[in-house]
């Protein structure tokens, strides 16, 4: 098995008639995912690669005749919050928010509402989730044949703040014969729906997952949260981390922003050096190179066996 998605998982695409969404829909269908509908207000009655388009999420659910599991939201930033709330209020349990540049207040609102309704948000500013060979939800890994090349089923769970690096890391794991159980592009913003620590309990319960790899960057307190979760839960699931953006610690780079919105360093605790120290202290090795990840995972698995 795996986490978040399975063979029977159904989802819709909100904003399905957008250029990027049309590609994403094609990719997911080619991969074998069950895309059961799309929503673009005013476009009811059309089809995108054979997927029916509706004006509202409620119509999509009614047409499907039973609850829909998930939604990929790819609408402009000003409309994203409403689209996510619409999905939540129509009983959708897993919402992948692809849209970038959403104001933090909107993200915080939809995340809090999701918490109250028992729904889960992945993202924003992410590429989605993939369970190799089973289901791909979002643009993660790209076209089906490219995704198949980089992601082979296996025993390692991947969580990454960078969408592209999710694929780079998974490809490295695949090439080393380890493979991936579930890979999740969690998003690069300062506030996201699901952090490392919030996804860890799912991986912990998953029989297929034997180790975790995280990709992280300066900014935010997500690593501290992960370390705290690990201590409080007593979890022994091995974790290997990679930290990008160490050059941002240099004095001449202070006050500059690089990469994701969440990469902005707002305090000393947010720096790469601090984070690496914190992770290593908690028994989570931080490798210097992506190509060192498989060996570090194997070493952890060997130690656990």
């Amino acid at each position, binding site marked *: 098995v795996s986490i978040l998605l399975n063979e029977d998982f159904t989802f819709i695409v909100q904003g399905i008639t957008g250029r990027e969404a049309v590609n994403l829909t094609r990719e997911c269908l080619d991969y074998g995912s069950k895309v059961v509908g799309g929503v673009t207000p005013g476009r009811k009655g059309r089809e995108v690669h054979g997927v029916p388009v509706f004006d509202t999420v409620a119509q999509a659910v009614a047409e499907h005749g039973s609850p829909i599991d998930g939604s990929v939201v790819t609408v402009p930033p000003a409309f994203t919050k409403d689209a996510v709330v619409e999905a939540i209020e129509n009983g959708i349990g897993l919402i992948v928010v692809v849209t970038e540049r959403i104001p933090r207040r909107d993200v915080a609102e939809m995340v809090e*509402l999701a918490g109250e309704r028992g729904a889960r948000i992945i993202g924003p500013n992410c590429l989605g989730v993939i369970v190799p060979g089973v289901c791909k939800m979002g643009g993660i890994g790209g*076209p089906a044949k490219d995704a198949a090349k980089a992601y082979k089923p296996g025993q390692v769970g991947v969580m990454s703040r960078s969408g*592209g690096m999710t694929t780079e890391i998974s490809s490295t794991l695949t090439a080393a014969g380890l493979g991936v159980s579930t890979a999740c592009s969690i998003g690069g913003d300062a506030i996201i729906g699901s952090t490392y620590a919030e996804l860890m309990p799912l991986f912990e319960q998953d029989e297929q997952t034997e180790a975790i790899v995280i990709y992280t960057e300066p900014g935010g307190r997500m690593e501290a949260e992960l370390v705290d979760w690990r201590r409080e839960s007593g979890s022994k699931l091995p974790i290997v981390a990679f930290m990008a953006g160490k050059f941002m610690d240099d004095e001449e780079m202070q006050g*500059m922003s690089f990469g994701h919105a969440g990469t902005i360093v707002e305090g000393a605790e947010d720096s790469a050096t601090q984070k690496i120290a914190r992770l290593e202290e908690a028994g989570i090795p931080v490798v210097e190179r*992506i190509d060192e990840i498989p060996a570090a995972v194997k070493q952890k698995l060997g130690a656990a066996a």
Partner: protein
Amino acid sequence: MRFYEYESRKIVELAGIPVTQYGFAKTAAEARDAAERIGGPVVIKSQVLVGGRMKAGGVKFADTAEQAERDAAEILELEISGHRPVGVLVDPKAEVEQEYYAAVLWDGRAKRPMMLFSDMGGIDIEEVAEKHPAHVGRGHLSNLHPIPDFRAKEVVSDVGMTGSELNRATPILARLARLQRDHDMTLAEINPLARLSDGSFVALDAHMEMEDEAVGRHKKVLGEIGVELEEPRELYEPSAFERNVKAIDEADHRGVIQGKDHGFEGNIGLVIGAGGGSLTLTDAVRSQGGKPANYAEIGGNPSVAKSKGLAMEVLKKEGVEKIAVMMSIVSNTRVDIVARGVIAACLELGKDPAETIAVFRIPGAWEEEGAKILGKYGIDFNDRSVSMWDAAGTAVQKVQGAS
């Protein structure tokens, strides 16, 4: 988006928080007028976006309007960390009984706004939190429900305040919290918030930062306080390279390119992507002894012209002879399009692509086509079997190896 102090004070004032009868002056004569209107001792404060103005001599105290004029003239000429002031703020010198600290900011871990309040204002709040934790009150707010006054009262009460002080400070913190939410501020801070000899509270300084992503929906209030949206508010002056790359990016909506060279002084031209890949590759170059000439990000499938534009700007930088073209595995950006772009940049500048492109490592979408185009010009194509680290190492060796 950062605000000058005089703008932040206006924002605070519009939210119903008491401020002094300050004046903003762009010239020494205007400063004199403001001081005359205030009538009494004043403080003249440089209006710059960077901190450290007190130390730099950007704050002066004047007893008369004439003195205020002379001080303002000096401060207006004084650069602080390379920034010229846009004006001075002329503030009545207040009879302060006590200074407090009030702020509302995002707690990313809780995913909620957090109120902070201290009865030890005027100094660095992080230091107070460390040395006198009992003097810092904290409280989270819901994102979904209205902000009630009592939450602010609890935070003020946490530091041991009561009586009329509690009752006067509470609505100020509550209004600051509403301001933070209503205006999408990443930071809304009043430091110091002062209690004057008559018992009233007044904001003596304010610091506001609005989230860039939300600026578009606050045009009305920004207009009211006279903010020019086109005016750059970077903490440093963008370089020619940074301005040129930005112009190329904005001229074409397909894909995104970014370039920065502030703080970079090396000779390895980086044409790299995407977000996480760029951070990883910049580290990999530096960890292997390389000195990047710049930082860059390519993403979202830019056109040939855009890729070419970025590569040309990098190659035009002083001391840059070669470029390293590298990305993490791409699924949206097309390898062949980036290849065409960087080759065209070399040719247009009269350089041999095979000599100029030290390494090309972009695996992923349309890589077969990319490899073919590169092959025609004698450039090796590195696929995913070449790690990001090794590609960066090759670039370092080819550019700096001989020296």
